[in-house]
């Protein structure tokens, strides 16, 4: 019973992280037609920066959180300016191919740079990991992982904030509108450059935050970016592009499946799950389990 509770909590909290990053990628894909292959790298960068600030520089939790937000908000804007803006105005097909090529180059270069710099300056065996102060909680006789509970609450809060932004603010509605019909949005006065910049500012920051939370759960190395991009893509395939409920369901499914697989077959087999799901879904229902709506 205890183990089942642990597994459930672990699976859901991991699923929440996956849902958050998948939705960030999916929203960017739906509004700008850009597929950011380096998406997973920002998860790693978030973990890396937090590890550096907390463990190496010994800054407090609040200062670290603030620094992560500011840094990655700026990074999101820069990334959009450098890699997305030049593609504006091309056909969706051209944007897709172009963005995959550009961001792949960025992914390879940036993770190599991170790995090299960290190994030289900080630790020859780079590993990004954080510990949560209340790691073990006892609630009503059962021992729960305080870390996983915190992660679950944090991802819920972030996803809820994202949802409120998209449904209650003018800019949020404009982002959703542009994802559903680019031309109608432009005709009604929505500025594609401003919306593109906002999508990446929020998306990259949310992704880095997810990386910080992931580092609480398990250590990351600099080269896990590609694996994490694949996870996000699998969630999108399950849940559909541009859909938040879809991302939640897809994230939950993959999170639970990965945790169960790791538990029963050993940690190494965990990542196999989403490769299997990825190809299985593509073979059986290429338009995605949720039927290719949105976007």
């Amino acid at each position, binding site marked *: 019973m205890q183990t089942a509770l642990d597994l459930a909590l672990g699976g859901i909290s991991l699923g929440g992280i996956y849902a958050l990053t998948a939705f960030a990628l999916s929203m960017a894909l739906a509004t700008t037609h850009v597929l950011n292959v380096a998406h997973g790298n920002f998860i790693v960068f978030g973990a890396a920066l937090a590890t550096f600030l907390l463990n190496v520089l010994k800054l407090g939790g609040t200062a670290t959180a603030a620094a992560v937000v500011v840094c990655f908000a700026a990074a999101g804007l820069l990334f959009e300016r450098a890699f997305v803006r030049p593609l504006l105005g091309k056909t969706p097909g051209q944007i897709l191919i172009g963005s995959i090529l550009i961001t792949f180059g960025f992914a390879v270069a940036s993770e190599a740079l991170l790995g090299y710099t960290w190994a030289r300056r900080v630790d020859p065996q780079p590993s990004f990991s954080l510990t949560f102060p209340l790691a073990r909680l006892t609630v009503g006789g059962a021992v729960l992982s305080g870390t996983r509970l915190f992660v679950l609450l944090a991802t819920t809060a972030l996803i809820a904030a994202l949802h409120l932004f998209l449904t209650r603010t*003018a800019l949020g*509605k*404009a982002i*959703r*509108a542009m994802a*559903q*019909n680019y*031309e*109608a*949005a*432009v*005709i*009604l*006065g*929505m*500025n*594609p450059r401003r919306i593109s910049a906002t999508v990446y500012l929020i998306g990259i920051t949310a992704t880095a935050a997810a990386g910080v939370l992931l580092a609480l759960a398990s250590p990351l190395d600099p080269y896990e970016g590609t694996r994490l991009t694949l996870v996000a893509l699998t969630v999108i395939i399950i849940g559909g592009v541009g859909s938040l409920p879809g991302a939640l369901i897809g994230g939950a499914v993959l999170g639970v499946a990965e945790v169960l697989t790791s538990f029963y077959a050993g940690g190494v087999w965990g990542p196999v799950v989403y490769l299997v799901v990825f190809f299985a879904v593509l073979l059986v229902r290429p338009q995605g389990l949720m039927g290719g*709506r*949105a976007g």
Partner: protein
Amino acid sequence: MHNPPFPESAQSAIRNPQSAMLEVSGLDVAYGDLRVLWDVSFSVGRGELVALVGPNGAGKSTTLRAIFGLVPVRAGAVTLQGVPLLPEPPYTRIRHGLSLVPEGRRFFPQMSVEENLELGCFALGARDGLRRELDRVYAVFPPLADRRRQAAGTLSGGQQQMLAIGMGLISHPLLLALDEPSLGLAPMVVDHLYEVVAGLKREGITVLLVEQQIYAALDLADRAYILETGRIRREGPGRALLADPYIRSTYLGLTPAPPPG
């Protein structure tokens, strides 16, 4: 007459009170090596309903899209109340008071009817009168009021067209451009649609109507232009063109009109 709510359009009205509302001159459009429009020129006066009609593939939609900056223009000029539009990016057209209801009933399918209409006001920024504007549109299109929380993609074709027109109107544009509004709609729905357009004309709203349904458009228009394979071939008052023998035989399949009296 509705008051334009944008500073840009109001200023130009003061500057050029006598100019035609919309002036298009010498428009040349090509897609790569494929030339689509040749020296297209026309104008729309304040309060007029002007129709741009012609057969399939004549370049009517391309003309509207060129005015809105959605296709690249090789040469030519477009001014709204004397203000040149072509150098500006497409998303600024609505701020100048130019509203487009594009071909194919473009809106946001996963959002509700009311959210779609609210987005029609996006360029106006936050404003207090939003509820009043929504009610105004609902008064013109009662079926939309009944379905205000429904996802727009689930509406029928005719209702979607009403929604698209509502979204175009809600910002009180100086000029409303309609791109083939009757396309894909059943005849009875088209009749109702044209009643709505006639109503807009009675209210003094300036309308540029692009249509393939030539008879209905010419019947309603103050003036019309015939576009064939990228060139303006004929222009004149709507009723006069309806009596024109060339148009009657080519487009309406009718014998020449009997002489009056």
